[in-house]
């Protein structure tokens, strides 16, 4: 953890979220999917941390555990100095107001029978923001304008909007409760590139204007490079590398990070990617390999990796969970 850890807006410590695998008539637990298996991370106020990894690495479960949409077995989620995981639901509410989320699929996260005005005002009403309905309507208009939608359309339903417009509505809804931190779970991944650019610019403008912090959960490294201040790379439930965005992209330490970056299609017409170094599929998080979890796909594997699990070794510029980074 950095020396300024005490100033972090969000600090996750030792987060462990396992899901039981149940079988048979009595639904006995026969195993565990170790979706999140000891994750530490920090988000500083007004900054963007990208949590990146491939499907099944647990990045989405980290976000859902922080929001208490799923129950974490272990760990602490400090938000502004309070452990959210240990708060009774009633005391959690003021913090939920300050902690909002935007998901990948704006179609699925908007109630199709709810007019846009209601969708955006819902959070304000439940947190008692904006006094009366007339005031809330004024605020909804302001929010829609802020996300570049026509406030005159607030009486419409979600299906009357395009995918990009629906994502703007979700952003407006998240902003309605005046949050400090917005968790963006693949928030721009499903959008066409011209629309994606619009939403990314919008998120950046909002961050600057409103002093928002983002936890940006995504598989899209091209967006991460552009948008994030810091990056945490996840593999099979654990963080394998952490550091400032530029350092991660210019000098990746962990072989998985290197493989991940090399796998991103090149957009430089003068250069095509070399043949991939990371082969095979991600193993099931129900049966992570012994030793280093990446050892069976690692181009630099050696004997020790098969027996022993590496720690997340800190360095001056971050941390890497690889024996090759030990004592560097």
């Amino acid at each position, binding site marked *: 953890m950095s020396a300024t850890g005490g100033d972090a807006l969000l600090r996750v410590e030792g987060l462990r979220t396992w899901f039981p695998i149940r079988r048979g008539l009595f639904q006995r637990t026969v195993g565990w999917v170790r979706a999140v298996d000891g994750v530490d991370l920090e988000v500083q106020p007004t900054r963007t941390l990208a949590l990146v990894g491939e499907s099944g690495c647990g990045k989405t479960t980290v976000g859902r555990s922080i929001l208490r949409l799923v129950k974490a077995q272990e760990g602490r989620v400090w938000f502004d100095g309070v452990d959210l995981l240990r708060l009774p639901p009633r005391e959690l509410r003021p913090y939920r107001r300050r902690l909002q989320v935007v998901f990948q699929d704006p179609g699925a996260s908007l109630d199709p029978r709810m007019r846009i005005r209601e969708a955006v005002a819902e959070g304000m009403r439940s947190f008692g923001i904006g006094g009366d309905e007339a005031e809330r309507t004024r605020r909804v208009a302001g929010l829609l304008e802020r996300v570049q939608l026509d406030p005159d359309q607030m009486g419409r339903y979600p299906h009357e909007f395009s995918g990009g417009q629906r994502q703007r509505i979700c952003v407006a809804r998240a902003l309605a409760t005046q949050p400090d931190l917005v968790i963006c779970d693949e928030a721009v991944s499903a959008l066409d590139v*011209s629309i*994606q650019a619009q939403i990314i610019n919008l998120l950046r403008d909002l961050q600057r204007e409103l002093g928002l912090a983002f936890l940006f959960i995504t598989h899209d490294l091209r967006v991460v490079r*552009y948008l994030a201040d810091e990056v945490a790379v996840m593999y099979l439930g654990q963080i394998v590398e952490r550091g400032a965005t530029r350092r991660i992209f210019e000098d990746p330490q962990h072989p998985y990070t290197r493989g991940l970056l090399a796998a991103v299609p*090149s*957009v430089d*017409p003068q250069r095509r990617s070399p043949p991939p170094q990371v082969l095979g599929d991600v193993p099931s998080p129900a049966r992570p390999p012994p030793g280093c979890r990446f050892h069976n796909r690692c181009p630099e594997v050696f004997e020790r990796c098969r027996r022993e699990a590496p720690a997340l070794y800190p360095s001056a510029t971050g941390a890497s969970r690889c024996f090759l980074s030990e004592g560097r």
Partner: protein
Amino acid sequence: MSPVLEVQGLVTSFPGDGDRVPVVDGIDLRIGSGEVLALVGESGCGKSVAALSCLRLVPRPGRIEAGRIAVDGRDILPLSVPEMRRVRGHEVSMIFQEPMTSLNPVTRVGDQVVEAIRLHERVSRAAARARTLELFRRVGIPDPEERLDAFPHQLSGGLKQRVVIAMALAAVPKLLIADEPTTALDVTIQAQILQLLRDLQREYRMAVWLITHDLGIVNELADRVAVMYAGRIVEEGSRLDVLAGAAHPYTRGLLRSMPARATPGERLAEIPGVVPPPDEWPAGCRFATRCERAFEPCSSEVPGPTDLSGSHRAWCHAVARERGA
């Protein structure tokens, strides 16, 4: 030598509120033997419908209205249903974004490839099974003997896509149409599948028609690129022509709006607005309503092609004016 695929003036329509709406509106394409052509565009531009049209697989109520489609020099629009079935798979195969589009969930994957082989060739089951095993090896399926008897749900997304590729290769087609073949896959798996397509294309000297929204994948795989917007092709050229020397304002806008090409901290260039739905496509140049270079003729006249070099063309009034054409 005739091209593997030649498309001229293809129009494919779907019913709109009143009249039928052409979602592919007069496109020309040519794919040479062993060539990789990428057709790139955003959702709704008509790129997938264009590809399905060339296999005569446009789902109802879609309909090919006009044009000529020739596979290896032979017109396919007049072909009978059984003749067309032979073209599919034998001369042209197609793989999709979602491998389950091509796989039967309740049949073992090996049997599905065996069936595909026996559909095109009179060979014994045993011989077809041996060929399947060989194909599974070739497309990089680990433990291929065991995987022959697996059901699709027992395989990861990447492995399913490899099975689909094996099936598409069953008859060694002259052209493989790959519609967003890696979009649903993780980035390390995507890199493996792209490498596989690259290797197979070389080894089988197969032409590939890649359909994608991702300019990075275009750069990785394509020899030539055609950019599609709102049912029409707006620019085409070699990979370098289009990615390093784009002329059409839409292509340039797409390239500039990519986070991968932007400098962190600098604002991304945006293309304002959204792609209009097909029944609201403007007259004249369809990009005119979103174009920063639009001027008088753009809203009324459909732009013709401007030759920029032997291999590079753009359909844009502003480009034509600049070139003094």
